[in-house]
C-alpha cells in the first residue's frame, strides 16, 4: 500500500506538469504589452479556446446545472472575467460604450488576471491601458435580458450574420444574447484612462 501511494504521487505530479499550466505562454512574435491583459478572443478563435480549455470549459456539471442559478457558483473562475455576450444591437448593454452591431460579440471583462506582467525592453515604456471601444468594460452594464452570456456556455462563435442561429438552446435563444446582470461581482472596476 505504501509503495503504491508513494509511487502514485510523483507520477501524478509529473503528469500534472504536462497538462496544467498556470500562466499564459509567452508569445514570441508579439510585443509583450500586446499579450498582457489582452482578451483571449483577441488572439484565439472560439475553437482555439475550446482546445485550450481555458479554465471555463468542462468544470462542473454543465449539462446538469447549465442555465441555472448555480452556474456562476460552480463554473466561473474567480480569476477570469473574459465574458462576452451577443449584442442585441443599439448599444445599451454596455452603458457608455458605442452601440455594437447586432450579432457581434461584446466583451465585458478584462481577460485573465494572472497574465505575466510585461517584459519591458530596454528603453520601453510601460503599456498604456487599452483604448476604449476594444471590449467595453462592464462598469455600465444594465439588466436587460434573461441571463448573462458567457463563453463557457456558448463556445461557438457566430457563423453568420444571424446570431439567433448560434445559440438555439436555452431561454435566451433568439436572435440576440443579452446581458442580464452587472457582470461578475468580482470584475475589476474600469481602468481609468490616462
Amino acid at each position, binding site marked *: 500500500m505504501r509503495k503504491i501511494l508513494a509511487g502514485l504521487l510523483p507520477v*501524478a505530479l509529473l503528469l500534472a506538469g504536462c497538462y496544467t499550466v498556470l500562466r499564459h505562454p509567452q508569445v514570441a512574435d508579439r510585443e509583450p504589452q500586446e499579450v498582457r491583459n489582452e482578451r483571449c478572443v483577441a488572439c484565439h478563435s472560439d475553437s482555439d479556446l475550446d482546445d485550450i480549455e481555458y479554465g471555463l470549459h468542462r468544470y462542473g456539471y454543465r449539462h446538469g446545472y447549465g442555465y441555472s442559478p448555480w452556474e456562476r457558483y460552480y463554473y466561473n473562475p474567480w480569476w477570469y472575467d473574459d465574458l462576452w455576450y451577443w449584442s442585441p444591437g443599439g448599444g445599451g448593454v454596455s452603458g457608455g460604450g458605442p452601440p455594437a452591431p447586432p450579432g457581434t460579440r461584446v466583451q465585458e471583462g478584462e481577460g485573465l488576471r494572472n497574465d505575466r506582467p510585461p517584459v519591458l525592453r530596454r528603453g520601453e515604456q510601460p503599456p498604456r491601458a487599452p483604448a476604449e471601444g476594444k471590449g467595453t468594460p462592464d462598469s455600465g452594464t444594465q439588466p436587460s435580458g434573461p441571463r448573462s452570456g458567457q463563453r463557457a456556455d456558448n463556445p461557438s462563435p457566430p457563423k453568420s450574420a444571424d446570431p439567433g442561429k448560434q445559440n438555439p438552446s436555452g431561454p435566451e435563444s433568439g436572435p440576440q444574447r443579452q446581458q442580464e446582470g452587472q457582470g461578475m461581482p468580482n470584475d475589476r472596476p474600469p481602468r481609468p484612462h490616462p
Partner: protein
Amino acid sequence: MRRQRRSSATPAAILAAGLGFVAAGAAAQEDYRNDEDFSSEKLYATGDIGLGARAMGLAGAYIAVADDATALLYNPAGLAQMRRIEVAFGLRHQHDRSTHGMFGVEAEATTRRTGLDHLAFAYPFPTYRGSLVTGIGLFRVRSNDLDVERHDRVVDGSQVLADNLFLRQQDGGVWRLVGGFGVDVAEPLSFGASLSYWRGALEDDQFVSIQQQTSSGTLDYTDRLTTSATLDGISLDVGLLGYVADAGRLAFVIHSPAWMRVSGDGEKVRSWRLASMDTVTSLFIDDHPRLPWAASAGGSFALRPLLLSGELRYTAWEELDVDELARLPGQPSDYKSKLGVRAGVELLVPGTPMRLRGGYAFDPLVYDLFLGNPARVVRDRHVLAAGAGLLVAGSFALDAAFTWDRFERADAGFSRVVEKRAEKRAFLSGAYRF
C-alpha cells in the same frame, strides 16, 4: 481491562462482563486500555459519521461529486473541479442511542452532541489550462461524548438480592486537520492527495456501585475510574477523478491506514464500604492503533436536472491493528473486511435555486464480538438520508441533511443478550464562494 474471547459463557459471566470494569488488582500501577475510547475497536465499528450536509444528503455517495472543500476528505481530486475560492463551515447534531439488554435487564447509552462539523477553505490557483486547487480543513470525525446509566435491582420477595448502579460519562472527540490539493493531470483526469493529522481527546469517568448478595456473602463496594487520554495520528488519501462526456464522473480513492498513538493516564479507586478501605491504582495508557486502509470506487452522472451518484467502499478491517488484539496463530480476526454501498440522487428544482437530495447506504457491521463474546448480526446497518440545498445571492450555498440508521446485534449463544442501536444525525453546512 483485557478483552477475552470465549466460545461459551454463562449468563452471570456475561453480566459481569457488562459491568464496565473488573475488580482492581493489587498492583499499584497497571496498563489500561479503555474499550470505549478511540483506541478500541468500538470506535471503528460504529461506522463513519460522515461530514458535510450535501454529501450526507447523498448518504455519503460523494467521491464522484466532491466539488467543494469537503473533497479534502471524500476525494481530494475533486478539488480540481473548483473554480472559485471557497470558505465553508458545517454544524452537526448527533444523537445515538444504544440499548443493551441482558436477560431482561436493560441499559441505555446515549451520545447527544451538537457542534462544529467542519471548517474548510479552498483556493483555486489561476490557471491558463487545467486546474490546480489547494485546500485545508478541520473536520470532526468522531464525537466521544457518551452518557450511560444502568440500574440493576433484583428483588426476591422482600429481600434485595442485588442493587447495582453503573454510570459513565465521556467527553471528547477526534478531529482531522487535512491539507490537500487537486490538479488536472490530463484533460479528462484529475488527481488529488491530502494529508491528515488526527488529534483527539477523551475524558472518561466511570462509577460502579455494587451491593449484591452472593453464596459466599455480601459484596458492597464502589469503583471509580477516571482516565484522560489524547490521540495523535496521521493518514494519507489519494484520489482520481475522471470526466466522461461532460456530465459523467468516475472516481477512485485510496485511504491509507491511519497510524495513531493514544497516551494518557488515570486512576482507579475501589472503596469497600463495609471495611472502610480504599484501593487506589494508577493507570497509564500507551497504545498504537492503526486503522485499516480502504478503497472506494464510484461514479456520478448528471442527467438534467438530476444528479445520480453511487460508490462502493471496501475497508480492510481484518488488518486493523490494535495493541490489545494480538491473536494466536490461526485465530481469525474479530473484524471482517466488508464492502459498503452508497447511492444518492439530487434534483435541481427547475426555476429555483433549490436542490433536493436523498440517499441510501449499506454500512455493514464489521465487529464480531459483543461484550467479548461472539456475536451475530440481527439487523445490519442501513442508512437513509435526505437533504436540501439553497443558493443565496448566487454565492452562498446553504445545505441541510438528515441521516438515520439502526442496527441490532445479539450474543451468538444467548439471544436475550442484545444490542439495539439507533443513530440520527443532522447536518447544516454553508459555503461562500468568492
